[in-house]
C-alpha cells in the first residue's frame, strides 16, 4: 500500500481556491496553489474538518463502491453503533442489521461487541495512579494528530487496536470456521461514519495490514438501507451488543464504560488539541483516562453520517434504554487478549520539524522569524497559506516566495514603478543613451 494514502481528497473541478479550508485545518496541511487547494499528504490526518467547511463540496472522502462487496464469495458487514442513530422511525438494532444483511451480506458484525472487548482490555491497562493519563486510541484522526504533533504523548496512548480492526478479526475468524472458506474469499466491509477510518483500513495504525477489505460511507449505505428496511417483514435476532459497546458511538461512551470517575471525554479536533497540549504540559494530572474524538459528538458526528450529531446522540441514548448490559458472547480468552494488542508500535512522524539537522533547523528558524517580521501579520490567507507565519515557514522550506503575499507584491510593484520613474528622470528610454552610429 502507498505510504500516504488519504481518504480525504480534493475535487479540483469544484475547488474555487478560497481560504475556508486552509484556515480550518488543524495541522496546516492545506495550501492554495495556482487557484486550487492542495493537501500536503504528510501532514493530513484525515479529520474531515475541510470536508465540513468547504462551501463548494470540493473536499470529499474517498470510500469504496458498494458493489465491491460482490468481489468476495462471503461478505460481512461491520456495523458501527453510530449507524443505530441514523434512523428516525426505527432505532431497532435488529431491523437495521437485518436490513444490512438483505442488501447482500452473508453476515453482520456489530463493532460495538468488539468495543466491549477493547473496554475490558483497557481496564487492565488502567494505572492506579498515573502522573499522566492514558489516551484512547479509538479515533484514528486523533491518533494521526498525536503522531504528527504530540510525539511526547505516544507512550500514553492505549496500545490496543480500534474496535473496527478487532471486529474485523473476530468476524473473519468466525466466518472461516463457519464456512471453511479461504480468508481471501471472505470480504469484511466497514460501514464508516468518517474518512479517517477509511484511511485506517488502507494504512492502519498498530498493525501491518488491516483485515478490513473495504469501507462504505454510512450515508451511501443509508440510502440503500432505508427502502430495504421498509421491505422487511420480519427481523432476525442479530443484535448481541450490550450497553457499554453501543455507548461508544457518542463521545463519553468509551470513558464511562471504564468504571472510573476520573476520565474526561473531549470532542471536536480543536478541543482535542487544547486538552492534549495540557496533558503534554503536565497540567492534567488528576485524570486517568482521556477519551478524544475528532468529531463533535463522537462518531455520530462523523462527516459521512446522515443525522445531525446532537439528534444522533439523543437517539443513541434511546437505543441504550432499550438495551441490556448484555454480556458479550465472547469469552475473554487469551487469544482475544493477544489479538487486541498493537503488533506494530506507533512512530512519531516529524513533519513539523524544519530540518533533521538541528543546526540547520535553527538557521531556518531564524530566517523564518526574520521573514515573518516583514509580513503584514493579517493572516488573510490570500497567499494560499493559512497564516503569515505559515507563509514564512513555506518560504524557508522553499515552497513559496515572499511575493506570494499580496501586500509584499504591492510593495514590490510600487518600488519597481518608482525605480522606473527614477530611471526615466535620468534620461533612460529617451534615446540619448543609444550607442553612437558611426
Amino acid at each position, binding site marked *: 500500500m502507498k505510504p500516504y494514502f488519504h481518504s480525504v481528497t480534493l475535487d479540483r473541478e469544484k475547488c474555487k481556491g478560497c481560504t475556508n479550508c486552509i484556515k480550518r485545518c488543524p495541522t496546516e496541511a492545506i495550501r492554495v496553489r495556482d487557484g486550487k487547494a492542495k493537501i500536503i499528504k504528510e501532514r493530513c490526518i484525515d479529520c474531515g474538518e475541510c470536508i465540513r467547511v468547504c462551501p463548494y463540496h470540493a473536499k470529499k472522502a474517498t470510500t469504496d463502491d458498494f458493489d465491491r462487496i460482490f468481489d468476495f464469495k462471503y461478505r460481512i458487514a461491520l456495523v458501527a453503533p453510530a449507524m443505530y442513530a441514523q434512523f428516525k422511525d426505527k432505532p431497532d438494532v435488529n431491523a437495521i442489521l437485518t436490513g444490512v444483511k438483505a442488501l447482500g451480506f452473508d453476515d453482520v458484525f456489530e463493532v460495538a461487541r468488539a468495543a466491549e472487548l477493547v473496554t475490558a482490555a483497557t481496564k487492565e491497562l488502567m494505572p492506579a495512579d498515573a502522573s499522566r493519563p492514558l489516551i484512547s486510541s479509538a479515533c484514528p484522526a486523533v491518533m494521526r494528530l498525536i503522531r504528527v504533533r504530540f510525539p511526547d504523548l505516544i507512550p500514553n496512548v492505549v496500545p490496543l487496536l480500534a474496535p473496527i480492526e478487532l471486529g474485523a478479526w473476530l468476524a473473519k475468524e468466525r466466518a472461516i470456521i463457519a464456512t471453511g472458506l479461504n480468508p481471501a474469499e471472505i470480504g469484511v466491509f466497514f460501514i464508516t461514519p468518517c474518512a479517517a477510518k477509511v484511511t485506517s483500513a488502507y494504512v492502519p495504525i498498530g498493525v501491518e495490514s488491516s483485515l478490513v477489505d473495504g469501507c462504505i460511507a454510512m450515508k451511501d449505505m443509508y440510502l440503500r438501507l432505508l427502502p430495504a428496511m421498509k421491505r422487511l417483514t420480519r427481523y432476525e435476532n442479530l443484535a448481541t451488543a450490550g450497553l457499554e459497546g453501543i455507548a461508544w458511538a457518542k463521545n463519553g461512551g468509551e470513558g464511562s464504560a471504564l468504571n472510573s470517575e476520573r476520565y474526561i471525554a473531549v470532542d471536536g479536533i480543536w478541543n482535542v488539541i487544547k486538552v492534549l497540549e495540557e496533558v503534554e504540559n*503536565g497540567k492534567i494530572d488528576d485524570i486517568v483516562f482521556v477519551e478524544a474524538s475528532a468529531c463533535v459528538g463522537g462518531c455520530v458526528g462523523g462527516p459521512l453520517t446522515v443525522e445531525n450529531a446532537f439528534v444522533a446522540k439523543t437517539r443513541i441514548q434511546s437505543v441504550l434504554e432499550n438495551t441490556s448490559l448484555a454480556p458479550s458472547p465472547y469469552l475473554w480468552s487469551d487469544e482475544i487478549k493477544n489479538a487486541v494488542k498493537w503488533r506494530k508500535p506507533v512512530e*512519531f512522524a516529524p513533519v*513539523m520539524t524544519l530540518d*533533521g539537522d*538541528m*543546526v540547520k*533547523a*535553527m538557521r531556518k528558524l531564524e530566517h523564518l522569524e526574520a521573514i515573518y517580521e516583514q509580513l503584514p501579520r493579517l493572516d488573510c490567507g490570500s497567499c494560499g497559506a493559512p497564516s503569515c507565519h505559515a507563509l514564512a515557514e513555506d518560504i524557508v522550506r522553499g515552497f513559496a516566495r515572499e511575493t506570494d503575499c499580496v501586500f509584499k507584491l504591492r510593495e514590490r510593484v510600487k518600488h519597481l514603478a518608482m525605480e522606473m520613474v527614477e530611471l526615466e528622470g535620468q534620461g533612460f528610454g529617451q534615446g540619448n543613451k543609444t550607442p553612437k552610429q558611426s
Partner: protein
Amino acid sequence: MDNKIILSYEIDGGNFSGAGEASSSVKKVLKQLGVDSDIIRRVVISMYEAEINAVIHAGGGRAEVEISPDKIYVKFTDDGPGIADVQQAMREGFSTASQKIREMGFGAGMGLPNIKSYTDEIRITSDVGKGTVVEMVVYLQEPVQK
C-alpha cells in the same frame, strides 16, 4: 552565525491564565527544531513553574531563552521581593505564598524543587527587595529526532 537562538518574553504579573504563554511558545519552537520530546517536556514544565512563580511572587518578570545545539539555557528575571533564604526555598513544600494564592491551588512549595528535578542545572541569585534571577540549563544529549 553563532548557532544560537534567543527568545525573550514578558511575563504579565497578576494574570494566572496568561502564565504558560512563554513555555507554550518555547515548546512550539523546540518542536520545529526537532528537539527530543523528553527534553522539550523538561524545559516546558520547568519554565511553566518559573512563570507561575514570577506571577505569584513578583508581579511578573522577563524570560530569556537561549537555544544552542548542545543546551537550552533559560533565565527568568523579576523585580519582586527577592528570596531571603534560597536553600529554604528549594525545599519541597516550603512556600511563602499567601492564603489566597493557596486557595487557588498554587503555592504548594513544589515550584523550585520541580525545576531542580527537571533541569540539569539551576542557579538562583536573589537580592531581597530588588528581585530574583532564576537560571536553568537543560543539556541536549541527542540533539535530533530519530
